[in-house]
């Protein structure tokens, strides 16, 4: 009973996360490319529940104006005399919700000249929170699509291998061993090395999915082959064959349904791995590039020593990934526990 509740909570959390990323334009107060040249590397904005006079504002918290210290570049102080309330459902920059409906409605925002940066800003004064939400669209979509691709290849080759057997089985499995024999990051690097480097973000996105997806097919293919191999000898499958069921019919109606639980578990295991693969490649500058945000390239600036030392909030997009990965890991655990 308890495990069931846990799984439900995980699914709800993951669902909300995907929804938030899907509707990034609504939740994000600013546009991803909007730069505030006055406020580069601004720390996360403090939200006040009491103003300078000590009046409590529980329902309408305040944000104070940020200004640069004239003495030191890149350090800011709050002007607590000039505070502005946070408004909900405000009109802000134009965006297209779900890529279709043009609107300018945002969940929250403050009146200019005050600015609300929940996770701080980067070197160009861009809002990290807005970029994180939008970046999730690329990273999560890359993970999901790459998983679909590699599971698709895995199912196709795995069932062909297990059902046909003989030389086809031998060829596919030996071919798969080559992929399993390589450390995955080396394999990703190699595939990436053979493909063009200077391409625009949308091409890079498709390329990444192709590269990541075509690397990981071997393991699911092997697992599915195993299930198909034992599944095709089951008595009810043999009976269906005796009744004259064709190969394709047997496959679709009787054998593939046996692999569903393995495919589901594999998907939950693969999605975070592939999201991470995108993050890693973009972090190293081999994936989706600026100005388009992705979870990986947002972390790339931390490779510069002074950014890592001086601006801790640049690590926030990375830290925010931990609950995402944690829920995938727990979900995979729960699925595996249910299977055994």
């Amino acid at each position, binding site marked *: 009973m308890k495990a069931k509740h846990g799984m439900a909570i995980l699914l709800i959390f993951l669902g909300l996360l995907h929804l938030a990323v899907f509707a990034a334009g609504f939740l994000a107060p600013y546009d991803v490319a909007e730069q505030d040249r006055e406020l580069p590397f601004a720390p996360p904005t403090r939200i006040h529940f009491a103003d300078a006079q000590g009046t409590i504002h529980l329902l309408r918290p305040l944000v104070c104006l940020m200004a640069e210290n004239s003495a030191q570049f890149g350090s800011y102080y709050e002007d607590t005399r000039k505070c502005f309330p946070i408004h909900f459902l405000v009109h802000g920059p134009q965006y297209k919700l779900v890529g279709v409906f043009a609107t300018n409605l945002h969940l929250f925002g403050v009146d200019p000249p005050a600015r609300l940066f929940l996770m701080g800003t980067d070197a160009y004064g861009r809002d990290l929170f807005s970029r994180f939400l939008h970046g999730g669209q690329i990273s999560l979509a890359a993970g999901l699509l790459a998983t679909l691709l590699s599971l698709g290849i895995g199912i196709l080759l795995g069932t062909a291998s297990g059902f046909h057997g003989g030389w086809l089985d031998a060829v596919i499995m*030996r*071919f798969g*061993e*080559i992929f399993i*024999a*390589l*450390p*995955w*990051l*080396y*394999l990703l*690097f*190699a*595939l*990436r*090395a*053979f*493909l*063009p*480097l200077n391409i625009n973000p949308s091409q890079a996105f498709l390329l990444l999915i192709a590269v990541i997806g075509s690397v990981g097919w071997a393991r699911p293919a092997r697992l599915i082959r195993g299930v198909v191999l034992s599944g095709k000898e089951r008595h009810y499958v043999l009976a269906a064959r005796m009744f004259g069921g064709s190969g394709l019919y047997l496959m679709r109606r009787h054998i593939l349904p046996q692999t569903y639980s393995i495919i589901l578990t594999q998907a939950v295991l693969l999605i975070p791995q592939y999201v*991470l693969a995108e*993050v*890693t490649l973009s*972090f*190293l*500058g*081999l994936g989706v590039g600026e100005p388009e945000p992705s979870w990986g390239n947002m*972390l790339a600036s*931390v*490779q510069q*020593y002074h950014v*890592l*030392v001086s601006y*801790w909030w640049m*690590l926030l997009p*990375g*830290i925010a*990934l*931990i*609950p995402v*990965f*944690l829920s*995938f*890991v*727990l979900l995979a*655990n729960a699925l595996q526990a249910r299977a055994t």
Partner: protein
Amino acid sequence: MRYLGLRLLQSMFVLLGVSLLSFVFVELAPGNFFDEMRLNPRISSSTVTNLRKQYGMDRPLPVRYFRWVESAANGELGFSFAYNAPVAPLLWARARNTLLLTGSATVLAWLIALPLGILSAARQRGWIAQACELFTTALLATPDLLLALGLLFMAVHFHWLHTGGMFSRESAGQSLWGLSKDLAAHMILPVTVLVLGSLPLLLKHTRAAMLEVLDSPYVRASRALGISRGRILFRHALPAAINPLVSLFGFSLGSLLSASLLTEVVMSWPGLGPLLLEAVLDRDIYVVIGAVLFSTLLLVFGTLLADVLLFAADPRIRTEDLA
């Protein structure tokens, strides 16, 4: 022995397959090192053509492949365009540093994982088991990249340790003892990342393997005979549980190498990682192919080693081989 011979043959096949596949991919891929060179207005197109000829890149694919195999047999592994030198010495200089990291990380990780895994299997509801469970779940959810960045941030922020590179600038010309002390100080961070990154899997499998054995009838029988708990654990159960762990040792090398690649780049450790990344960015394909082959070789060697160890550790396999 026949079994080992078969495995050796299989590994050769994998290596050949990897090299052949890489060449085919290079052939299919648009653009190469010389195309990037052509974009440079300061290099004339006849120079590029001559260079292409000089490196033999104008020849057809099979010719290039056989020439490469020949140079691999000579211990050169092809020629780097960017460094203008044979690949193998380049790789070897960096691979030593990578091996230093991964080797120490492997030893340390197993030294930590074995006792913890055994203990958490022995007392399933004990606090050690619970703590391990929590710890592994948290680590599983934290990618190596974040571990590396987080540790680096803390080390820099609190002035804990030396960061970046293998040696400090001041250490030049010191005695061997001073140098090794400096090296050890620089190794702490990357090795910690690698150990933390590989621990969850090792712990999980050690615990699972021990649990399976502890559940078997002969352990119950020995307990009924009054054999002490410690003796059952280490003398009776552990040798039986070691089998899947030895295979895991071979497999875990692969993920360790990947993690090391990333950690080296983040911590600017002069290993294969930065070299490979540069080669990818420069499209220096022979270096890329060489590095990939080297990693495959290591992994194949790891699984072979695991096979030999299994052969030595498990009498069941030995008798199977004799029959």
